[in-house]
């Protein structure tokens, strides 16, 4: 087997692959041990948000261009798929990829025009597109359902269990793809753009091309996830294009740790779980939720994945293991 270390920009070690493998196994095996429908639906949400957060991370976490309108892709694909289903009776196995492609197309058009612009401008524009979509949906009640949205979309799988596995497989496929992409030369260049775009351009790299490509890929997966969500809920509504969704995705990726693909997964699981477990607090739920997010961002701005990484290093050093590469990393953080 090839030695992954050299093939890719960052070490894709056997250990990390094993970690992913264990994670996949867990995800796939959970329903065997726990048949609680409520839990399965919560986990469905976790998978959904994990795809959204990871896809968002590909652009923003690596190149540093903040995308404030990820919901634009989610909602765009969701509505496209819903309309195709309602009017043409296309089934999920077509509407999902088509939705993803439509989102990717949006990403291409928007990205080509706007990724030339500096950070704050790009962020503003992405927000505007998402907001416009939202307003469009709210306004065109006849076609797009207005505030209520559209009902009667055909379901994903017949049972909660089926939905769970669908989402799990989709999520794992997305995560594996994005993970390997981010550790590949493509990911290396994306990271270099985020580190220092000027130096990157001086080195002969067409940064706009890479940014747009990342944006398009990011859009595709978000779109597919959006379609998946709509079919599972059998409903699509304007909330799928709302800025709160964009903000939520952002926060999950940040809390988990931007720029790693694995961090956002963690963030998605954690925040979704947090949201559910705080339900008993009633009125105060969102307050505590947002308070926790603020604290995490203040004290662990690189995300929890980073904290875990540092903890592992500290534990390792104490046990006297030889880790020069990690030590170098730690030094850089000081």
């Amino acid at each position, binding site marked *: 087997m090839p030695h992954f270390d050299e093939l890719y920009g960052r070490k894709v070690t056997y250990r990390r692959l094993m970690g992913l493998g264990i994670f996949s196994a867990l995800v796939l095996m959970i329903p065997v041990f726990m048949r609680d429908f409520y839990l399965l639906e919560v986990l469905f949400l976790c998978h959904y948000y994990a795809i959204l957060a990871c896809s968002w991370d590909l652009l*923003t976490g690596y190149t*540093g261009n*903040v995308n404030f309108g990820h919901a634009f892709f989610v909602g765009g694909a969701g509505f496209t798929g819903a309309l195709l289903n309602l009017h043409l009776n296309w089934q999920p196995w077509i509407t999902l990829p088509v939705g993803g492609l439509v989102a990717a197309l949006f990403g291409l058009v928007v990205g080509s*025009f*706007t990724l*030339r*612009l*500096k*950070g*704050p*401008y790009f*962020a*503003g*524009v992405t*927000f*505007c*597109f998402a*907001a*416009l979509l939202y*307003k469009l949906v709210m*306004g065109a009640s006849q076609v797009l359902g207005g505030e209520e949205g559209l009902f009667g979309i055909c379901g994903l799988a017949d049972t909660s269990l089926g939905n769970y596995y669908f989402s799990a497989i989709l999520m794992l496929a997305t995560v594996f793809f994005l993970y390997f992409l981010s550790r590949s030369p493509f990911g290396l260049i994306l990271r270099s753009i985020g580190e220092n*775009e*000027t130096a990157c*351009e001086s080195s002969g790299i067409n940064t706009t091309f890479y940014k747009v490509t990342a944006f398009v890929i990011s859009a595709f997966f978000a779109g597919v996830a959006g379609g998946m969500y709509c079919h599972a809920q059998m409903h699509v509504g304007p909330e799928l294009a709302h*800025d709160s969704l964009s*903000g939520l995705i*952002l*926060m999950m990726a*940040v809390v988990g740790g*931007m720029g790693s693909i694995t961090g956002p997964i963690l963030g998605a699981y954690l925040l979704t779980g947090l949201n559910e477990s705080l339900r008993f607090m009633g*009125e*105060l739920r*969102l*307050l505590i*939720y*947002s*308070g926790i*997010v*603020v604290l995490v*961002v*203040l004290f662990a*701005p690189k995300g929890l994945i980073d904290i875990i990484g540092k903890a592992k290093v500290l534990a390792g050093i104490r046990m006297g293991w030889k880790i020069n590469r990690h030590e170098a990393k730690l030094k850089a953080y000081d």
Partner: protein
Amino acid sequence: MTTLLGILILGTVWGSLYSLIAVGFSLIFGVAGIINLSHGSFYMLGAYLAYTFMTVLGINVPLSALMAVALTVLVGMAVDRFCIKPMRERHVYVLIITLSLAFFFQELMYAFYGPYGKAVKSFVVGEIELGRVEVSYQKVLTLLVSTVAVSLLWLFIKKTKTGKSVAAVAQNKDAAILMGIQYERVYLITMAISAGLAAVAGVFIAPVLEAVPGMWTFPLFKAFAIVIIGGLGSIEGAVIAAMLLGYAETAVSILVSPNFTDMVYLVATIFILVVRPTGLMSKSLAYK
């Protein structure tokens, strides 16, 4: 004719309100180089505090207004000192912490005041009629206060020593440091001004709009759009763009439909960024 006059008058009122909010936003970007996504929250706090002092506690209007603004300024300074300062190196983090704070403040208001709008009584009751267009005194008052506030800010920056140091940091931070200006203090002052202006806007518009927990979003996004259109870092640009937006929105609202007002700034931003990315009067480049 009446319609045109109505558009002009109402547009001026809204434009001046927007300029209050946008100027602070632009200022903090021009000086500290950050985009403060919790800016809308200061506006919201101003409104809610006004409600608390005036309606709940029954304190008289001028004192309430003063306290509301002062308290918001303190909050703004705390945000700058404790939340933004540690994050200054990487702009992405500033965006994220301020956004998270904005959500937090929203939930805070929700927890304290509930989801329903809180009404504040008009400071001055009655209307004035300008050529068959009725404008409430409250709106006129808002217009006056906005104009005064922005003018005071302009004077402050051009004439006072502190104000000039603010301008200096905005122009060239390193040179300012070499001249002995403490930039952290300047940032703090700028944030205080920024928060104060937003709070004033919130206080004076509270009787016109209700105070709801989600009210921080529209001023923030519009301020963002205004500042992009007018050019990041340019105060004059912010005021001009704000007035333009005020007129445009009012025109659309009266001539087309109130449902479309909130789309104006979105379309305008996209249009400007695609066509003329530096904004109307920007000092910085949108391209690298």
